[in-house]
């Protein structure tokens, strides 16, 4: 089965938050869970310049997801495409006092699994698998004005990464990336900046 990933070239991100609301709509989310978020980096002094960037982040779709590892009922699974999915029924049926939503604390990345109080489940980006099944792009990918986010088989994304100079960064730190092996990869701007 082909493995999917997301490539985020945030040089072009304008911080408009379209992706976040596209995600809210697609997943019919109430206020609270934010599966897709746009973080602001800076403004900070880097060398002679004052720099700011926007950084879109979501579930990193790890090959070895710590959230899945800690879930006591095994409600978080990897599907054949490498997408991290929540078994909503299993999650809903689990007493949250029992599981303590361990998945959220286990995630080393900026957007951990998000708790949806209306459904009493945690949710995360599912790469809009329902749209992909219909032959459409994930909603954030489609609606992103500046085409910051690319969805596709990891093999094809790797080609794009090569074409763009083989520069990727590890949002969340090098160590978690080595262990977790995310399927979501960020390409940074060529300008200097720091990640905090």
């Amino acid at each position, binding site marked *: 089965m082909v493995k999917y990933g997301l490539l985020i070239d945030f*040089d*072009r991100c*304008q*911080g*408009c*938050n*379209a992706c*976040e*609301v*596209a995600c*809210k*709509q697609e997943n019919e989310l*109430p*206020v*609270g869970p*934010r599966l897709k978020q746009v973080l602001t980096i*800076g*403004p*900070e*002094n880097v060398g002679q*310049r*004052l*720099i*700011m*960037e*926007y950084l879109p982040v979501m579930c990193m779709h790890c090959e070895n997801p710590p959230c899945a590892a800690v879930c006591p009922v095994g409600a978080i699974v990897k599907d054949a495409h490498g997408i991290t999915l929540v078994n909503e029924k299993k999650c809903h049926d689990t007493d949250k006092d029992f599981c303590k939503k361990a998945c959220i604390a286990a995630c080393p990345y900026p957007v951990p699994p998000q708790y949806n109080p209306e459904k009493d489940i945690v949710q995360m980006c599912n790469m809009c698998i329902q749209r992909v099944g219909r032959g459409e792009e994930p909603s954030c990918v*489609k*609606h*992103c*004005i*500046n*085409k910051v986010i690319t969805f596709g088989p990891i093999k094809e994304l790797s080609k794009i990464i090569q074409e763009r100079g083989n520069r990727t960064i590890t949002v969340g730190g090098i160590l978690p990336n080595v262990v977790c092996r995310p399927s979501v990869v960020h390409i940074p*701007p060529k*300008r200097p900046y720091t990640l905090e």
Partner: protein
Amino acid sequence: MKGATKNSEEKIVKTICFSCRGGCGVFLHVKNNEIIRVEGDPEHPGSKGTLCPKGLAVKQLVHHPDRLKYPLRRVGKRGEGKWERISWDQAFDEIAARLQDIKEKYGAEAIVQGIGTGRNHNDWSARFCNHLGTPNANDPMHFCIGPRCVSGYFTFGIAAPLDPHYGATNCLVAWGRNEIHSHPSNGRYIFDAFERGSKLIVVDPRLTKLASRADIWLQIRPGGDSALALSMIHTIIGEELYDKEFVAKWCYGFDELKEHVEKYTPEWAEPITWLPAEKIRETARLYATTKPACIAPGVAVEQQMNSWQTQRALYMMAALTGNIDVPGGNILWVPPLGGFFLNCDNDALPPEQRAKAIEGGCKLNGGHEWGPPNFVLEGPPLWQAILTGKPYPVKAIFWMAHNPMVGLPNTKAVKEALEKVEFLVVGDFFMTPTTEMADIVLPNATWPERSEVGWFTTPLEHPQFWDKDEFPVFAWVKAVQVGESKQELEIYNELAKRMKIGGFWDTMEEAFDFLLKPVGVTWEEFKKVGILRKPMIWRKFEHGLFHTPSGKFEFYSERLRELGYPPMPEYVEGPESPISASTIAREYPLVLITGSRIPVYYHTDQRNIPWLREIYPVPLIEIHPDTAAEYGIKEGDWVFIETRRGRVKQKAKITLSINPRVVHAVRWWYPEKPGPDHGIWESSINVVTLDSPYDPGIGSPTMRGLLCKIYKATEEEKW
């Protein structure tokens, strides 16, 4: 996909998003008269399938539980919030009768009728006033777009902005315009330009993402714009960087301009702009020697005194460098359905009535078919007419989609006038601090609830269309109906019928056919096609498009001189700045700028849309870390912003993006808080902005570049 039916219940309607004025293409998925989803329309030439958060959240706007659904009549005291539901017939009859009565008793000029931000009904509003006989049409053009239009009229003979053409530019000057937040749909064309290697110059007191990646970022003192523009013109002329051929052939008054700007050296501008003279020179050189180059001017310049004269200086820079109406330069804006504002029917208003207009923007109406429309200043002279009856009484205000209690400067003065006006009708989507003051409240239709010939869907928001099109016009197609909401055109039609005034129609379709007549299609035909396109013609001035007395681009304007205004732009310092008001600055030492675009909101809209409010939940004031330390303010503290008009509080955002001598606060109200004021006195920044003195030509108030002090709110003062 267009018009397809998914199953017996769900239908897909292709229309145009108007959550701002961008006009992106959308498919609305509708089931049982409810929008269940919105998707971008990949066939739309501008948005190409993408949308911004304001469009993507539209179902929460249309189907919001607080929507106004029926006409309401006030039953309690004004502002008490007691209403009774009435029918549209009752509403129309009562409004028509009251307006007729006031017209007979005091003259039509006692009626002010107007709009907020245009939702495709600017011309209808002005047309209604002209046929009713009142010169007092209001349009908040005095601090948005109007200065660009007015200076366009006096500079190159068209009341329109000279819009930047990002599609082919090699140098973009973003002047007080954070395009990627103001018009997010244009972002891609800007980032494409960078990838082509386009230069970027940003004039902005705040560090934006554009500023952070600019070749030159000028962190100008708020209010220093005219000085910067004039000193750049000085440099361009002095160093002979101008396009001699274009200037000789197409410009009028170059020698006068050259002499005029001699005194405006970059050294002179340095203390006024807080920018090093050498950096100003470097900027002028980069702009003038990179071809083609475009200037994107924003409202920052317009919400100051001298607004339109500063705009004139910016246009002059474009002409001096030969960047007028060429690919990658600044574009002359000519709609395909006749001139912009041509459907106002200005001729219907007798000259003796026009002469009665209350002081304000209409003074600069040329009375020329290419001239700017009439509009009265919504400000001190109008409030005075209401409160004192001088120069004559104003008894009625009729506003469509307008929220001046939040949007206009000096809220206290606005409220005083609204308390006193005899008859106030306001249309909107929700109860706002303005509708709360009304006698009759009308439920307006949001964009999915209306059909329109979208000729007001401006290329300002989509300059990239100009690659292939000259101002495309789109069809909006109604998808749902909420309650009894009506769009403005229908309201004007009905009132015109009852008041027996001309210029309107029995049905909206007849009005659409009228609009489409110049291109020879009917509404029925247009609705099916969805778009009218016309090929782009560059260098239109070669075909007689400079409608100025000289037929040229006018550096020197005889028209302005005759009207008693400076024929060339001058440096004018704002009324309340560290330079003009040093005594006030001792007590109020910080410079205040207000109202930059929050990407998830448009003007005063959408604070009640859950998906958007979640992203930007509370009003933020931006403070430099040094300043914050000086005042003992920490990130997240509630901070009072006090000017001579009063104080409001916003939450501190400590950031390097702002100059230590400047703070920036946003426009705000709390739709969820109780009426009549919905929290405006707590956090709406326009409580403390300045409405007077205003620009003598068009009435622009000062909302950027005021003096304030800040201090932390104590525990009891928070909520």
